[in-house]
Every structure is written in structure tokens, then in C-alpha cells.
């Protein structure tokens, strides 16, 4: 004989199941779950106007090119107590730096921290060349980062999110999905769900990292991905993290995972 299930028990069972269901669906996205499918990835160029496309395509007058020239010069310049240039150890970028930009940010074996390409270049300069520090977003660092990134031009992005990088990837993913700032917006709301739609006169892009460092017309100079991400925080009226913040690197890693397969595209021009 079945015991009668009281209304209370029924309620408990119902809400217990509902709670379990919420847990399942509210769980963080599995690493394999992509909100933009790999074959739907698009560079920022797909969302810009004709002037920017012309500027970027101009292989003489692209405003990022003087910085490329500078990067090429710095590569050969002897620096610091080591009396070595980058070239002394690394030879030509076309060989030694090929593919490097496709896999950064990456874990630095010595410190266990997540390094973006700028961090790696700065460290190499200080530790190996024993030269003066290049501050973040300085002309020299930007030029060098651009020059090193250009060795990976046209190559597909493939950053690792395994091992020590996994926690950084998950942290970055969480930030991307979380509402922030006075405008209470999450990156995903515009860049996953509404790309292609116009915000005033601009088309929202997918927010891809493949074209950085980019010459941003708004700032009239080359800019790093970190600077661009900090400006995203300004855009949603959130408190902007300090330069060098872990969050920026975590987000960069998540963006690179999200952009897997998209080609590196520098020197680029963006609004």
C-alpha cells in the first residue's frame, strides 16, 4: 500500500528537483561550449567602414607602419649590460618568432604566472638583455610587440588552456559572462549575442583579439589589447583595473581561446 504523499512532501520534491535543475543549468560553461561557433568567427574588419578597410590595406600609408619600422629597428638594437640585441639570440623574427603570437597569453614556467606577449618581451629585456625596463604601453614596447606579432601574420590562433592555464581561462570566461559597471553589461551580451547590430552608427564587433596591437584612430597611436580591454571597462562605466592586472591577462586568454583558428592580422587599424 502506498503511503499518501502529503502536499508538503510534494512541494519539497518539486523544489528539490527545481533547485537541482538550476544548479545544472547555472553551472559555469563547460570549456568546450562556444557561443560563437568556430566557423562563424570574424575579424573586426568585417564590422568596420570603408575608410578603415582602405587604411589597413594601404601597405605604404597604414598609420601603424611607422611603428613596425621602429620595431624592426629596435629588434636589431643592442641594449643593456648584455650588449646584445634581440637579433643576437633570436636571429630573424620570420624564423624564431613565427607562431609565437598565436599562443600567447601563456604560462611563464619560471614564475607560474600568466604572461601576455608584452610581459614576455619586458621580462626578456630585463632578465636576458639586462636593459632598462620598458613600461607598459610605451612606444618601444608597442613597436616591439607589433613587430614580433607580425611574424605570425596569417597564422591561426591556438592558445593553450590546459594545465596551469586552465584556471586563468575559467577566470577570464567568468569575467566575460558577468555583468559589470554602472551600465550593468556583460561582454557576452554585445559581443556574442549582438554582433553585427548597430550601436549608434557603429556595428558591434565580436570583440576579437587577433589584430592587436592595433592602431586605434581614437587614440591616434598603436594600442595594446590590454589598453583596449581597459577601455571596455570605461565603456560600461566600470572601475578600470590597474595596468598589469591579472584580470586583463585572464580575459585575453579567454578571448584567444574564443578566437581559435582566426588569423593574426597586423598591422591593423581600428576606430
Amino acid at each position, binding site marked *: 500500500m502506498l503511503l499518501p504523499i502529503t502536499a508538503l512532501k510534494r512541494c519539497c520534491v518539486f523544489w528539490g528537483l527545481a533547485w537541482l535543475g538550476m544548479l545544472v543549468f547555472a553551472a559555469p560553461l563547460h570549456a568546450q561550449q562556444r557561443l560563437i561557433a568556430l566557423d562563424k568567427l570574424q575579424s573586426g574588419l568585417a564590422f*568596420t567602414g570603408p575608410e578603415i578597410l582602405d*587604411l589597413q590595406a594601404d601597405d605604404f600609408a597604414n598609420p601603424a607602419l611607422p611603428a613596425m619600422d621602429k620595431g624592426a629597428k629596435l629588434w636589431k638594437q643592442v641594449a643593456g649590460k648584455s650588449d646584445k640585441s634581440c637579433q643576437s639570440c633570436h636571429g630573424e623574427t620570420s624564423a624564431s618568432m613565427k607562431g609565437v603570437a598565436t599562443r600567447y597569453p601563456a604560462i611563464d614556467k619560471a614564475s607560474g604566472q600568466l604572461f601576455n606577449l608584452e610581459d614576455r618581451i619586458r621580462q626578456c629585456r630585463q632578465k636576458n638583455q639586462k636593459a632598462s625596463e620598458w613600461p607598459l604601453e610605451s612606444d618601444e614596447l608597442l613597436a616591439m610587440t607589433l613587430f614580433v606579432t607580425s611574424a605570425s601574420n596569417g597564422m591561426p590562433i591556438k592558445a593553450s588552456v590546459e594545465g596551469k592555464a586552465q584556471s586563468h581561462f575559467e577566470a577570464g570566461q567568468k569575467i566575460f559572462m558577468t555583468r559589470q559597471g554602472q551600465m550593468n553589461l556583460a561582454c557576452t551580451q554585445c559581443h556574442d549575442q549582438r554582433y553585427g547590430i548597430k550601436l549608434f*552608427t*557603429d556595428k558591434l564587433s565580436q570583440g576579437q583579439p587577433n589584430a592587436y596591437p592595433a592602431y586605434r584612430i*581614437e587614440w*591616434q597611436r598603436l594600442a595594446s589589447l590590454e589598453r583596449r580591454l581597459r577601455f571596455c571597462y570605461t565603456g560600461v562605466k566600470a572601475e578600470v583595473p590597474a595596468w598589469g592586472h591579472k584580470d586583463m591577462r585572464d580575459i585575453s586568454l579567454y578571448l584567444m581561446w574564443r578566437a581559435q583558428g582566426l588569423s593574426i592580422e597586423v598591422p591593423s587599424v581600428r576606430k
Partner: protein
Amino acid sequence: MLPSLSRRDYLIRFLQTTVGAWGVGVGLTNAQDMSVLGRVQDLSDARLRNFEEMVAPYVVRQTMKHEGVTLSLPMLADNGHLVPLSLKVDSPMTEASHVTHIYLISQRNPVPLMAMFVLGPWNGRAELSMRVRLSGTQMVVALARLSDGTFRYETQEVVVTEAACIDNG
């Protein structure tokens, strides 16, 4: 640098320049601005300049015709910090008849003159391109001075959504 003028016209221009200089609003720290024509407009009078005001510093009683100049800017500028501009003046560019100066004038920028070019018959063509800054939607005037002392001009309205001169992080 300045085209040759009659003494009277030069005096008029000199007065316009010095009186205009007293109206400087925004801080340009350089006392000896090599281009006296690069002075800042008095911003307390916050209205768009009209065409006459824009060309007054350069055209003093000479003939000015709305012909012979092709001016090309995008109708909608992505960003006011970098707006490509091209222009062409119909001129044989011979010793007898050529363009001597080209002035690019803004209606709304803090500094009205965006650039001045000096040309001569050695250029072969009065055609040039550059990139200007536009602080908001406005009219741009391209004014060319010919070797006979007369002027030609063209204007174009440009819609600028992200203005230059304003900080955006």
C-alpha cells in the same frame, strides 16, 4: 610664405590677425606661432563659423569663384581624428597660370586652418591628399589661390560621429 599683397591689403590682414589673436581662448602656449593663420578661434562665441568668416583671413577683396576645385572627403567620417581628404584644382600649372597656395579650413575646429600648402608650376598638378582632424559634423572649405591673385574654392559637409579634440580614454 604669405602671397604678395598690396600694402593696403597687407595692413588689413595684419589688423585682422592681431585683433584675432587677442581673442584666443584655449591655451596655446607658443607665443611665436610661425603660422599666424593657425590661431585658435575664440571659443566663448560658440557657434559655427559661416563661409565668409572662414575665408576672410585669406581673401581680401580679390575675386573668388566657386569652380575649378574638386574636394573629396567621406560623407560620414568613422572618426574625427583621421579623415582622409583629397583635392584637385583645375590648373595648367604653367609659369603663367598655376596654383600658388591651398588653404584647408574647418568650420568648427578650435583652430580654423587645418593646413596650408605652397605650390608652383614645378608640381605639374595641383592635386594633393592628406588626413585632417574634424571636431564634429561641419563644413570643410578648400580655398586655392591662383598666380593671378584670384581664388577658387569648394566646400563639403562631413558628418562626424566621433569628434576629434575630445578625450575618449
